[in-house]
């Protein structure tokens, strides 16, 4: 050793800008960058599907059926991810399928969120028989197996993208109602709500002005976690043939169409839509978990 043992070399203090970066890193260091990037990318693809897709997703050429991805023998750069049994371009169908997943996912979460939050607030704040009725309905709803119930509803109203949105909203509102009601039960005992009562505010204005803004955090967290569940359910319904009707490209439908091909080596028909579903659901869940830690009043320190 060249340095004497009694000399300790202290690390030089880091300059201020680096300290600022470190502080930011502590605050946002666990921000899920990759999941956010994936979800943003899917959203952009969904929005600009018309510009991005190289082919028409619904019309194929029967002379180009079951073309493999470009790197396999027989594949070409014309159909980068290959074609399906009707000669439709898999990549274009994935791109348009992103639109279905995004629209159904976000809209169904919104429908479920609005219905569930409103009923949860009414139930928690008004109490009494209103609470009894809403909560017994919720209990009954939760006792129904969600997927079977969704299939049943789909069979009644018929398949279409907007019907799927309604069906998923109707299936999943109960989770919101439960969580939001619990939150409201503790909020209504808070002093600022009591103060609003003694200041002469009506119950409706208390629910709108004092309760609702305080449960929005929880609703957002729940929504981001629900996004994954809803996308999976949409894919499942499409796979089972009661979801988005056939010519329209949906990831679940592509899985369903490709499943026979799996046995004879047409792996690209199922692997690519499957990967898309998995990545999107995983991203939604990771972002949801991060939001939960950041926004949940029980976990947040104050």
């Amino acid at each position, binding site marked *: 050793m060249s340095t004497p043992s009694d000399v300790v070399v202290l690390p030089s203090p880091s300059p201020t800008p680096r300290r600022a970066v470190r502080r930011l890193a502590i605050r946002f260091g666990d921000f899920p960058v990759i999941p956010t990037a994936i979800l943003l990318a899917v959203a952009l693809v969904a929005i600009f599907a018309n510009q991005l897709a190289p082919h028409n997703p619904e019309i194929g050429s029967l002379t180009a059926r079951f073309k493999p991805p470009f790197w396999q023998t027989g594949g070409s750069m014309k159909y980068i991810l290959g074609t399906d049994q009707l000669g439709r371009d898999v990549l274009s169908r994935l791109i348009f399928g992103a639109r279905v997943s995004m629209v159904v996912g976000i809209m169904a979460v919104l429908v479920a969120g609005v219905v569930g939050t409103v009923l949860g607030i009414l139930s928690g704040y008004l*109490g*009494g028989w209103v609470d009894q009725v809403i909560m017994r309905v919720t209990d009954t709803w939760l006792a129904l197996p969600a997927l079977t119930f969704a299939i049943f509803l789909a069979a009644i109203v018929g398949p279409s993208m907007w019907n799927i949105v309604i069906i998923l909203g109707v299936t999943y509102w109960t989770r919101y109602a439960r969580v939001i009601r619990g939150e409201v039960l503790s909020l209504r005992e*808070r*002093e*600022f709500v*009591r*103060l*609003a*009562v*003694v*200041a*002469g*505010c*009506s119950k409706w*204005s208390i629910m709108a*002005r*004092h309760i609702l*803004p*305080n449960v929005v955090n929880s609703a957002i967290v729940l929504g981001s976690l629900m996004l994954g569940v809803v996308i999976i359910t949409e894919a499942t319904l499409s796979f089972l043939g009661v979801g988005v009707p056939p010519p329209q490209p949906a990831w679940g439908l592509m899985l369903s169409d490709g499943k026979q091909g799996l046995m004879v080596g047409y792996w690209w028909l199922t692997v690519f839509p499957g990967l898309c579903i998995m990545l999107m659901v995983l991203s939604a869940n990771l972002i949801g978990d991060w939001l939960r830690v950041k926004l949940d009043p029980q976990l947040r320190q104050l």
Partner: protein
Amino acid sequence: MAGEPLLRLDKLSTHYIAGGGLRVVRAVDEVSLSVNAGETLGIVGESGSGKSTLALTIMRVLPMAAKIVGGHMWFEGEDLVQKTDAEMREIRGKRIAMVLQDPMASLNPLFSIGNQIAEPIRVHERVSRASAWERARGLLKAVRIPSPETRVKQFPHEMSGGMRQRIVGAIGMSCEPRLLIADEPTTSLDLTIQAQYLNLLRDLQREHGLALIFITHNLGIVAKMCDQLAVMYAGRLVEAGPVSRIFNAPEHPYTQALLNSIPRMGERDQRLTAIAGQPPDLSALPPGCAFAQRCPQAFHRCRSEAPPVLHPRPDHTLRCWLSVDAPAERPRVLAGAAAV
């Protein structure tokens, strides 16, 4: 006393009813009280003596299990017991305002200060947003918040505890009520801030001529703030009258015991005098006086019959057999209690 008091409670009773009437808790039991305009009434009593329930009853914001089972509340000539919920909403915050037990938690963390002070004004008076905010700024100045122009846009977490407290006071004053009920408003504050706040309340009271009901178990605050004092025990009013009279010559044994339990400067070697025993279960009150179990002067009658409401002087209320029966007529059966 000149004319009709601002608020007159007449044999007001509020009970908590549980189990379909099987368990009845008499939280407020036939309480008669009055408050004049511009006057301060202190209500003292142990925890669970019904002070807070009394305040909630006056505001008519009782929890669902509690019911007003009898009596009247005359406020400016109207009986609040008979009012519908919609009529009460007009009164709440406008003519009777309230400051709650924990003013620190009384502000909604998501709204700016101005928004929250303006809220009751917007609820009760048809004024524009701009003029409500103008009044909010004026109120902040009135409660001595420095630079109200910037403070009005800030949020509760940007304020100190004392400031938040004064803001809650400003919300209470925002519609210039005739009566302000303060339910232990200073328990969560340190002593200097407490004193500041009490002075502020007194100044506001003087400026606006409002009546104040002060619910507390701090007798020091009562001595400093109040004109009248009402002592509650087990849901009943046991003694009421001018503060100076009750402090100098308490007549009810409970009031005497309460005043004796205040620690005094200089008495270092003496143990603090506590009142022996526990307050009774409000759902199973003894047949006689509720305090008889703990009363050093109780005699036979105290245990069998509830004492009547007496008025030894026009402004003095008392509920005790001691001032009815002469000492010779009191058979002392409670040897143990009498020896204390």
